[in-house]
């Protein structure tokens, strides 16, 4: 019996490898990054049997996975939850065209927003797209999930979503590995209309997807991921989804006295849920994320005392669950604890010592000092930490790419100077199209491209932008004399501030590329060179 200690993310990756994966497509994003990193380190990833290079963004990743599925092979696109917003178009429409080779999408949600801007629950996406969703409760199920998902995908010709949450993605346990399966052969669809969803075709495809729903529901009723455990005390029933089920087991040392339904495959198993409702006086719904099933169980009238969960205050409406929160909702006494100390101060994350972004922000702050009405629109990356003291250099951070387009909109409104600050990889992810908008309208926007030659925030993955930024900006139509390159170093401070001030004064789109390698990857590269 082969066993390994794996993160939830790594278990998904190993499960996909063992299930005959041919292509892993992804853009790095916490807490999903380790899925593809694991595949890249695997034998099949290194020798090219599995495609596993990073994609430019989640949309290109999912589309490439869709193309591989078209060609008959098993493909997986993985991303953080907000990445699925970027990839929503191919995701929803892949459900209409269907899958040829198995198509699996992994979304890693981040309740409590450990490293994210929101805590959206990806189960809604699966529901919206009318496709199955698997929500593993532990690392062993995370390992099994891709194999089951690929089979569902090929059997019912639909993409399948695997939903992870931070706690499972980033927690290790011993996983027992199973049988392995080879890759699918190349096979193209026999129906040439299948992937051409012109309205005339799409209506039929959509109808077939709707007609398949009862079969998907039946698969959920029979799924080993969904499990009804009877219990003697029927004053309460417990419906727990995914990892929340573990907290219920923890509260009762593995033996709940109440009937308990674990749900880890959707569409929700209606028969099992109805059995729980019929058997018990009340049902507590425990879900990591939004009250997705709870809201359905409540329905109308809105005040239904038989259903408890996040909506009636039995559990907090927001944030990650914990064993303590779930035990309290079950009415169990808490353990005796030591009082919290008042001494610990917050220790917010900060830019690393020597970080190039720090030098860029110092220069930018100086250039902006004479423009009290100017604003700096920033983006997603390490440099978002420039919002904190001592820099306090940025005014916005919303979603990938929004810096350039928000700066443009503000400039359209008359705000001057409107500055965008965006990292190299965020720029190729979602900034290039916004820059084209600026160029098309000759918008007075100064774009500071923070080029640290890597995707730093997620641990230093290769950036698609490396050695391409000047040619991309020129190709999109930025005037060559307004593509400036600075080296963010303390000794170049005066010069850099002057260049930034020059471009702030220019009444058109300009780009200042602040280029110096991330100190973390530079250290790693130096170590590697020493070893060589």
């Amino acid at each position, binding site marked *: 019996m082969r*066993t390994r*200690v794996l993160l939830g993310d790594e278990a998904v990756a190993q499960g996909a490898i063992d299930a005959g994966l041919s292509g892993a497509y992804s853009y790095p994003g*916490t*807490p999903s*990054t*380790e899925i593809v990193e694991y595949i890249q380190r695997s034998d099949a990833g290194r020798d090219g049997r599995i495609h596993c290079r990073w994609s430019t963004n989640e949309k290109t990743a999912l589309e490439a996975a869709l193309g591989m599925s078209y060609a008959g092979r098993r493909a997986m696109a993985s991303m953080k939850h907000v990445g699925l917003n970027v990839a929503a178009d191919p995701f929803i429409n892949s459900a209409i065209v269907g899958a040829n080779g198995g198509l699996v999408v992994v979304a890693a949600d981040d309740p409590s927003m*450990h*490293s994210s801007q929101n805590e959206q629950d990806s189960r809604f996406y699966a529901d919206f797209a009318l496709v199955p969703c698997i929500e593993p409760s532990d690392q062993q199920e995370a390992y099994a999930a891709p194999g089951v998902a690929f089979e569902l995908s090929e059997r019912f010709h639909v993409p399948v979503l695997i939903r992870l949450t931070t*706690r*499972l993605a*980033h*927690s*290790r*346990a*011993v996983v027992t590995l199973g049988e392995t399966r080879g890759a699918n052969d190349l096979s193209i669809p026999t129906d040439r209309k299948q992937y051409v969803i012109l309205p005339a075709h799409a209506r039929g495809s959509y109808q077939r997807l709707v007609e398949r729903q009862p079969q998907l529901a039946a698969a959920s009723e029979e799924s080993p991921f969904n499990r009804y455990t009877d219990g003697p005390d029927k004053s309460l029933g417990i419906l727990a989804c995914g*990892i929340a089920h*573990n*907290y219920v*087991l*923890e509260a009762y040392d*593995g033996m709940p006295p109440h009937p308990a339904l674990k749900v880890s495959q959707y569409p929700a198993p209606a028969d099992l849920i109805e059995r729980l409702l019929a058997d018990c006086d009340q049902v507590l719904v425990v879900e990591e994320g939004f009250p997705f099933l709870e809201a359905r169980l409540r329905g109308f009238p809105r005040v239904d005392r038989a259903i408890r969960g996040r909506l009636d205050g039995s559990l907090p409406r927001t944030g990650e669950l*914990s*064993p*303590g929160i779930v*035990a309290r909702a079950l009415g169990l006494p*808490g*353990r*005796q*604890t*030591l*009082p*919290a*100390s008042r*001494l*610990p*101060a*917050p*220790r*917010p*994350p*900060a*830019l*690393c010592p020597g970080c190039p972004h720090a030098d860029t922000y110092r220069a930018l702050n100086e250039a902006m000092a004479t423009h009290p009405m100017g604003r700096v629109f920033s983006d997603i990356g*390490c440099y978002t*930490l420039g919002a904190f003291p001592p820099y306090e250099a940025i005014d916005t951070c919303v979603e990938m790419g929004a810096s350039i387009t928000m700066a443009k909109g503000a400039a359209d409104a008359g705000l001057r100077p409107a500055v965008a600050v965006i990292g190299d990889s965020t720029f190729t992810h979602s900034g290039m199209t916004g820059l084209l908008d600026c160029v098309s309208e000759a918008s007075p926007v100064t774009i500071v491209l923070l080029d640290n030659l890597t995707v730093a*925030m*997620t*641990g230093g993955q290769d950036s698609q932008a490396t050695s391409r930024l000047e040619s991309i900006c020129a190709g999109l139509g930025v005037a060559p004399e307004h593509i400036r390159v600075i080296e963010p170093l303390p000794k170049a401070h005066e010069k850099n501030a002057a260049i930034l001030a020059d471009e702030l004064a220019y009444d058109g789109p300009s780009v200042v590329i602040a280029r110096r390698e991330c100190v973390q990857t530079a250290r790693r590269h130096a170590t590697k060179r020493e070893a060589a």
Partner: protein
Amino acid sequence: MKRDVILAGVGGQGLLTIAAAIAGAAHALGLHLKQSEVHGMAQRGGVVRSHVRLSDRPIHSDLIPEGAADLLLAAEPMEALRYLPYLAPDGMVVANRVPMKNIDPYPDEDEIAAALRALAHRLVFDAVSLAREAGSIRSANIVLLGAGAPFLGIPVDALRAAVDRLFERKGPAIVETNRRAFDLGLAQAERPAD
């Protein structure tokens, strides 16, 4: 056998390396384990925590319930105090006393030392000096692991072997340094209490 351990410190202190060593030792012994950690944004000099659970029976929750931890292993004194509510009333605290002052103001050091001294079961010591003695201050995390080893409920030799395996590919000199670091920490734990 069951041990719930909270690892606490600051990004860059090598907490996750210790977590990997404990997990590796537990796996080699055939135990069940869960080890939850923080990645991403929280690592940039912010707080790092890991929940490590070892047992000879299946473990359900990836997170340790408050009031249940048998051991709190802290690479930094203020970070040790942050997680006291996780500790069982008879739980042990093993902490490095050298502060990591990357925030301003950092709380009063005497007050932190006094709060740690007030704990019933504790070992608070200078892991950085011992790491220097071992050959590299970067091995302070392994010193800490050595000091915590007698309280982890698994044979010390299994931990030592797991540390060796972690550093194997970095060459014999680094393996040797970390072995010394582990043993200096262990000796600290076996010394009579202050």
